[in-house]
């Protein structure tokens, strides 16, 4: 199955993924409403993505006391009938990657559903750090990128953490999100949210 593949080396920490995700959830660029979170422990620290991996042996499925989380054998997706969630929080405690969280606008604990097969976060990611691909594809791409770095065939750039999105990038991201959701999205508000987030990290000393 195709899954969200995250390449920490290519992430600029711009937060476009979380902003887009939250826009699709609650109409506001509000990272707390996002089902994907890029965790950052510091400027030079490795990044990690906290997003549902649709595990093969999902801890959330056995944790869920309502039996509303299921592993769909056909599609490979971990699905949630979150309308029936009574928010016990067990899925959040047991999830090994921290992908399950209580969405403020819902009573329920939710996790990424891959937007039904066309993830918005991937569509907006300006640096290609997030992709929607088969494991084999992702593995082969990483291996080839490594060889590129090893032999120095244009791989040097790939080793540096990419820069933050430009104004033009934010406009492209805004139009991609807007186009998908059928609403107008102000690129300024995205850029603002991004800088607010970064400020918060700075204050946290990260």
């Amino acid at each position, binding site marked *: 199955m195709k899954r969200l593949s995250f390449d920490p080396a290519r992430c600029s920490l711009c937060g476009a993924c979380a902003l887009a995700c939250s826009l699709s959830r609650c109409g506001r660029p509000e990272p707390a409403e996002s089902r994907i979170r890029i965790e950052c422990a510091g400027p030079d620290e490795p990044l990690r993505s906290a997003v549902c991996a649709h595990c093969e042996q999902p801890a959330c499925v056995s944790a869920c*006391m309502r039996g509303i989380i299921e592993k769909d054998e056909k599609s490979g997706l971990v699905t949630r009938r979150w309308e029936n969630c009574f928010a016990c929080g067990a899925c*959040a405690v*047991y999830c090994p990657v921290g992908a399950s969280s*209580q969405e403020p606008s819902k009573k329920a604990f939710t996790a990424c559903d891959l937007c039904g097969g066309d993830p918005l976060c991937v569509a907006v990611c300006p640096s290609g750090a997030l992709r929607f691909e088969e494991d084999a594809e992702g593995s082969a791409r990483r291996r080839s990128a490594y060889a590129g770095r090893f032999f120095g065939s244009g791989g040097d750039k790939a080793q540096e953490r990419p820069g933050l999105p430009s104004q033009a990038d934010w406009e492209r991201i805004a139009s991609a999100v807007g186009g998908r959701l059928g609403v107008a999205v102000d690129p300024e508000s995205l850029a603002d949210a991004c800088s607010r987030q970064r400020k918060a990290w700075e204050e946290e000393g990260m």
Partner: protein
Amino acid sequence: MDACFDILIIGCGAAGSSAAFAAKKTSPALSVCVLGSEDLPVYSAPALPDLLSGELSREGVFVRERSDYESAGIVLRLGETVRAIDPERREVHLESGEALRYGELILATGSQPIRLRRMQGTDLPGNFVMKSMADVDAMAAYGGSRAVVVGSGAIGLEGSMALKARGFEQVTLVEALDWLSPKSLDKETSDELAAVLESFGVEVLTGEAVQGVLGETRVTGVRTAKRDIPCDLVLWGIGMRPDVELAKAAGIPLGQLGAIRVDERMCTGLSHVYACGDCVESTDALTGKPAVHLFWEPAQRGGSVAGANAAGADEVYQGSLAVFLTNKGGLSILALGKTAREITPEERVILQEKRDGVFRRLLLEDGYLAGVQTVGSLADADLLCAVLKRNAERSNGWSLAVPVPEECRCSVRDVMRFLRRQRRG
């Protein structure tokens, strides 16, 4: 001829049901039968307080429908009580007299609530436990407006909140020991919890052992060492006990804690017999010691390991965590790992904070995070849980456990920042 199943499962709760589905998934060609003593397919016992409060409908409590078993090819026989197991002949004898033959047997007999039968008045109408749907139905039918809840485990806490939500005017939570949930919480955390409960109108009495139930024909009150509390009903939440009668009679070895002893593959001491759920003694993931964890998650996961292995797979159950978790109607509490009393004072560092209405208490042992207690939010629960599990493996040669550096042991915030950084790289 006797009915014969490749895999026979006794118990249709979380463990039994997940064992059945896991077995079918592993090996669809095998015949699988589940016996349930209640006439109901698996439902969520942890959701019973919500059924009681009225927040959930009856239908909402069920985890699976009868038709789910059918479409998976599992034979479901409900309302069947097992009289005995004959491991020699690989047979199970039902109350009805019927004998069922099995290839592999999985015991998922669950647990029973502890009742103080010898205490005065505990046999009166108005005494309740909350283990089964029938218990909740009975309580709902009984009615009343004043309740005493005895015990401050999950049933006690959630039960008192549920009764309040159901509209009871007076709900009194009585705990014999000095503070609430003393097995899982330190006094400081318990005080936070008590404050939350009281803000919802639940009266909390600690250090008061119940001495008897008052009433002639039905419950009219509860007597403690300090007072008589008038009430219409008593909800007992003083603990659960693994149901091991069948196993014991069949000669299946029990562990030191009195539950069925299983290995990491969920095999019991008898060949062709697996066990899972509340009735087993497994390993505590943090201490590595034998433990009886009567929660949903270990039952569900242990069930699928038992089911898969019975069907020919080779899965392991890596033990479970003693998770104290309640997240209901504004009451949010999580406790993991050790409490202060379980760590020697010389090795102990305790950090505590309350920020933005969230109470968080972290316990370090020898510099390693060893216990967590929070009230008011489940944020970072996964991180804390992951760190605790990792630290538990610190005796392994290749352990990745890292102590919190001295300079970070000043505040909860510093520790959290360090842990976040540790998680990756």
